C-alpha cells in the first residue's frame, strides 16, 4: 500500500534521512524504533508529507505523493496521523474535533457536485435534444452529512467510553483522554493507514495503558498502522515488523521475535542492551 523509495530529507543542509526503502502492505503493523535524533519521526512525517521529502518517492495507493504537483490534501484524508502532543483543536469541543474534517470534506464534495450540475444545466440549455447530458444525482444534503458525521462521532466516542465528554473542550481532558480522542478523530475519516508519532511519550505512566489498549484494539480490527514508539513491550506484542532506524537509514527490519532475540546489527544490539 505504501512504497517508500530512496527517501531523503535534509534540513538546512543537514541530511537526516539518507535513503529509506521500505514497503508497507495492507494490514501491516510496523513499529519504528531508534535512538533519538535518528530520523524516525522525520521518516514518519515524510510519509504524509508533513515534511516534504528532499528526494525520493512515497507511493501511496499507486500515487507518488512526494510529488509537489499532487493535491496532498486528498491523500492525507486516507492517512490518519496521531501526534505526540495530541494536537486536538482547542477551540472545538470533542465532538466538533471528530466531526470537523468529515463534515468539511463531504460538504465540499457536495458543493463541487452541485456546481458541476449547475454548469451541466446551463450547457443543456444551449444544445439540441439528444446531446443533453444527464445531471449527476445528488442524494445527500448538508444537514444529512452533519447528522451522519455526528452519529459516527458518537459511535466512536462510545467505543472509547467517552460519550459523556462529547461537549467538553480539550483543555478539560486528561492526557490519555486527549490522545484517545485524537485517535478516533483520525479514525473518523476512515483512513487506510494511521501514522502514530510517539503517541504515548507525553503521557503520565498510568495513562499509557489506556492509549495502548485502544491501539491494540485497532490492530485486532486489521487497521494498517505505522508507529514510532519507545514502548518495547507493546512493539513486541503488536507489531508484525519492527524497523530500526539509525543515522538516517533502516539498519534492521525483522519480525518482533527475531528482532528482539537475534538482532544482527551491532548498533541495534547495543541499543537493545540499553533499553531492555
Amino acid at each position, binding site marked *: 500500500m505504501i512504497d517508500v523509495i530512496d527517501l531523503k530529507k535534509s534540513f538546512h543542509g543537514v541530511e537526516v534521512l539518507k535513503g529509506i526503502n521500505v514497503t508497507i502492505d495492507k494490514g501491516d503493523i510496523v513499529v519504528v524504533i531508534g535512538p533519538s535524533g535518528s530520523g524516525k519521526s522525520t521518516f514518519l512525517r515524510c510519509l*504524509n508529507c*508533513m515534511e516534504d521529502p528532499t528526494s525520493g518517492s512515497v507511493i501511496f495507493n499507486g500515487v507518488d505523493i512526494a510529488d509537489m504537483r499532487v493535491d496532498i*490534501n*486528498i*491523500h*492525507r*484524508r486516507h492517512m*490518519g*496521523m496521531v*501526534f505526540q*502532543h495530541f*494536537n*486536538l*483543536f*482547542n*477551540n*472545538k*469541543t470533542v465532538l466538533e474535533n471528530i466531526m*470537523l*474534517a468529515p463534515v*468539511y*470534506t463531504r460538504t465540499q464534495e457536495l458543493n463541487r457536485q452541485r456546481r458541476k450540475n449547475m454548469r451541466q444545466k446551463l450547457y443543456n440549455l444551449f444544445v439540441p435534444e439528444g446531446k443533453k447530458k444527464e445531471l449527476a444525482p445528488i442524494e445527500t444534503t448538508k444537514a444529512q452529512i452533519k447528522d451522519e458525521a455526528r452519529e459516527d462521532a458518537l459511535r466512536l466516542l462510545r467505543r472509547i467510553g467517552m460519550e459523556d465528554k462529547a461537549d467538553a*473542550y*480539550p*483543555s*478539560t481532558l486528561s492526557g490519555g483522554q486527549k490522545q484517545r480522542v*485524537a485517535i478516533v*478523530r*483520525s479514525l473518523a*475519516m476512515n483512513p487506510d493507514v494511521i501514522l502514530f508519532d510517539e503517541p504515548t511519550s507525553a503521557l503520565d505512566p498510568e495513562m499509557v495503558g489506556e492509549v495502548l489498549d485502544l491501539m491494540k484494539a485497532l490492530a485486532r480490527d486489521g487497521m494498517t498502522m505505522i508507529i514510532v514508539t519507545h514502548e518495547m513491550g507493546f512493539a513486541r506484542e503488536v507489531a508484525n515488523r519492527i524497523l530500526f532506524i539509525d543515522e538516517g537509514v533502516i539498519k534492521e527490519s525483522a519480525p518482533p521475535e527475531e528482532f528482539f532475540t537475534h538482532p544482527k546489527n551491532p548498533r541495534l544490539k547495543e541499543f537493545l542492551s540499553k533499553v531492555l
Partner: protein
Amino acid sequence: MGDFGVKVDRFLEVFIDKNGYVRVLDGLQNTLLIAITGLLIGIVIGTLIATVRVVPKYKTLPRVLNGICSFYVGLFRGTPMVVQLLVFYYVLLPILEVNMTGVQVSMMVFGLNSGAYISEIMRSGIQSVDPGQLEAGRAVGLSFHTSMIKIVIPQAVKNILPTLGNEFISLIKETSVVSFVGAADLYVAFSYIGSNSYEFMVPYLVMAVIYILMVMLISLLIRLMERRLKKSDRRN
C-alpha cells in the same frame, strides 16, 4: 473660577438653544463611523496580511506577496496618520480625479492604517497558537487556508482580543485629527460651540468626558466578549 456658572450657562445656551447638540451628535456619529469602519477594514486587511506573512515561503508567489505586504506595513506605520489623511485627500484624490467626502477618505485611511498595525498584532496572535494545531488540521486533509480559518485564526483572535481592543480605542482617539480633511467629528462640533459662545473651557471639558465615556464603554464590551470566548479555556 468664580464665573464658572456663567460659562456653563453660555455653553448650555449654544448647546441646546442654538442646536449645538445636533452638531455634537453628528460629530459623535462621524467619529464612531470612522473608527468602527476603520477597525473592520483593518481587521480584514490585517488578517490577510498576517496570513500572507506566516505562509511557508518556498514558492515564488508567497514570497512576492510577502514583499508587498512588508512594504505596505512599513509605509503605513512609518508615516503619521495626519500625513496619510492629507496625502490621500490633497494628493491622491485630485490625481485620480475621484470625489470623496472627508468622512469617506477618513474611513479608508483609518482602515488602511489600522490594517498595518492589526497585521502585526494578528501575526503575533497566529504565531502564539501552537504550530501543532495547524499540523493537525493539515493531517486530517484540510488545506492550509481552511485550517487557518477554522482552527488557527479563531484561537489567534482570542489571544489578541485585548490588544485589538487597544487598537480600537486608539483609533477612536485618533479620529480627532480628521478635521484636517474637513470631516466633522466631535472636535469640530465642540470647537464650533466654543467659538459661538466665545468660551472654550466647558465645551472642551465635555468633549474630554465624552471620549472617556466612549473608551470605558468599549473596554467593558471587550471584557464581556473575552469572557464569552474564554469558554474553551482552562482559566475561567
